[in-house]
């Protein structure tokens, strides 16, 4: 890629106005609305075919299908938690007649905790926060990562250099360490956890986006757009962003797992919102009462297995997405 062209085709360049429309990527064809050739229909057909092909690929991936079913299950129980198990079931004052530390049995399917609460109810409610935080933090991290990666790949010179340094910094330092710092100085709460994870975990996405941006930047159609007078904004949002998006989306699914683990770790360290159930909080409580060494195995096992299932499910689905987007991986 020629590093110096953007300067010539800067946003202030007079040809910028008509340029974008004329030099639009092929994806913009439907907006052309040319009555002679029904471009819109062609594009729609091609997209439909692609979707069909991708769905067939996904369906042939058994682990991914299982993962999707597991995810669906957890999302449903998370959303329906208040209906299945009303919040009063978590109220400690209403559990006075329930045995403490009851091992799993027919009456108490997953056992009870140190305050007589049913483990299954806690897992149910915990799914809400854990999955919500996982997804929200991932979205945040993806947005930051995409912006930084695009900027690092597209802009050259001092600005790009500074962003690269910043990405390097966040790659080198473990995001958990930074997330601990952030969440310990900010007000405790679910939102803080989301911000702490989102703000610190974007670097690997940025790196992937950057390398994809670099490879797209060197293609001829970008050169063409530039020569036709496209500015930074046009190239970034009309050409580069669509080109990196599939990769980002596949990465999103893979990243949610990491974010869920990060949430559980932060909650376990006591940095979460103690008033809200999350799988990490349950594990923290289990350690507070030394459940592991006192033989209350269900207290330790159930939240961890929930985490394991959801993270595995996200990973399986993410891998399938990735294989669809990146055929080179399929042989692996």
């Amino acid at each position: 890629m020629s590093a110096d062209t953007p300067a010539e085709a800067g946003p202030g360049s007079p040809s910028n106005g008509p340029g974008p429309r004329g030099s639009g990527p092929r994806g913009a064809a439907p907006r052309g609305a040319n009555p002679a050739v029904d471009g819109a229909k062609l594009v729609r057909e091609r997209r439909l075919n692609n979707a069909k092909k991708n769905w067939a690929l996904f369906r042939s991936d058994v682990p991914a299908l299982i993962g999707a079913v597991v995810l669906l299950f957890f999302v449903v129980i998370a959303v329906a938690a208040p209906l299945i198990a009303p919040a009063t079931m978590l109220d400690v004052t209403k559990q006075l007649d329930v045995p403490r530390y009851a091992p799993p049995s027919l009456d108490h399917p997953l056992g009870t905790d140190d305050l007589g609460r049913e483990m299954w109810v806690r897992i149910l409610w915990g799914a809400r926060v854990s999955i919500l935080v996982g997804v929200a933090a991932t979205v945040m991290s993806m947005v930051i990562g995409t912006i930084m990666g695009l900027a690092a790949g597209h802009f050259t010179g001092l600005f790009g250099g500074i962003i690269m340094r910043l990405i390097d910094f966040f790659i080198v330092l473990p995001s958990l360490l930074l997330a601990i710092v952030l969440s310990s100085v900010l007000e405790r709460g679910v939102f803080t956890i989301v911000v702490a994870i989102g703000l610190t975990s974007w670097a690997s996405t940025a790196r992937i986006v950057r390398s994809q941006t670099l490879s797209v930047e060197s293609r001829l159609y970008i050169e063409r757009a530039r020569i036709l007078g496209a500015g930074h904004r046009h190239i970034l949002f009309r050409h580069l962003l669509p080109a990196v998006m599939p990769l980002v989306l596949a990465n999103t699914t893979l990243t949610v797992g990491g974010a869920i683990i990060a949430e559980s770790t932060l909650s376990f360290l006591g940095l979460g919102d103690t008033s809200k159930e999350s799988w990490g909080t349950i594990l923290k409580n289990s350690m507070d009462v030394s459940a592991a060494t006192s033989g209350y195995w269900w207290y330790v096992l159930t939240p961890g297995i929930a985490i394991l299932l959801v993270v595995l499910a996200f990973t399986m689905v993410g891998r399938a997405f990735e294989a669809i987007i990146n055929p080179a991986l399929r042989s692996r």
Partner: protein
Amino acid sequence: MSTPTHDPHPEDRRTPGTGSANPGTDPADPTSPGSDPAGQGPASARDSADAPGAVDADEPPAGGSFARYFLRKLGGAATSMILVIVLGFFAFRMLPGDPVLKIAKERPMSPAQIAELRSQYGLDKPVIVQFWDYLVGIVTGDLGESYVYRKSVSALIGEYLGPTLLLTGTAAVIAIVLGLWLGQISAWRRNSLFDKLASSTSLIFWSVPTFWLGLILLMIFGGTLQWLPTGGMITPGLDPWSFAGIIDVITHLILPVVSLVAVVYAQFLMIMRASLLEEMNEDYLTTARAKGLTEDEVRRKHAVPNALLPTVTVVFLHIGGLIAGAVTVEAVFSWPGLGKLTFEAIRGPDLPLLQGTFVVFSAIIIVMNLAADIVYRFLDPRVRRA
């Protein structure tokens, strides 16, 4: 998040070096190593030797002595360290609001007492002066005083640093050896039962929080079977340098090390596997086979050394994840290290202590990365000759 700890991206690992070997001095260089994810991109054609080994794409092929390479890496590390220090100041002094007011909220204090506390912590000075004091403190090794322990933070860290290095060092060595060894077998016998088993086990280990694995181990071997001690580093009263003392420390070390290794080796396995798979279609292996070498020799003498190169950098990058994992593992096993100190600082909350552990942890990780870059330079003749 791909927390470095949890990076599910095997193919992202085919891009060794983007992290640390590419310090971004030339972000425009499209020959960024192998990570062209869709495999297209005329850009990579420019990089004639685009085997993953040739990672240092922004390294001019000729020119740049070792001193220059070293200085550049050192500069990068220094920049990171400065960022850590600045971040440490703003995160702990600016974000949380007035720590004295927080303390005052917890116990009744007279305005005079508050004012005194303020001057004690230097909070009555302008921010810029506070920042300067903080910088001077860091340079002279004075990280302030812990609210909880009522001791100097640097003294506390000095006291707890050894056990952490022992724990993470042991875990790192075992995880690297195990991961690389299993990874190469896995790749070599791709799609065999061994490969599937190894890959799925590592996937499962990757999908659990480190501390949970620790809790499970604690439950089985410490609680139920009572084979191993449940916490601490040494039975009180034993001399750590006697024979019995060393054995005792080792028994205390087993569970925390296993939990750390379990989560991290899996990543090393996947990196090594991906990296060796990359090498497996190379022509030089066919040549080696044609020479009449056994499969085993081809693997050991030809494929693995080449696959190791890109792995080294990535492995060192993941050491950071190991250290982050140590925080929770030390909390679970009451291992008297920096992680436990961090855990207690969070509980406090003891911000000066937390700030100190953050700066020290970060410094360790940055130094490890610098070491990785330098080791890499010596390992890869292509970079060395350059």
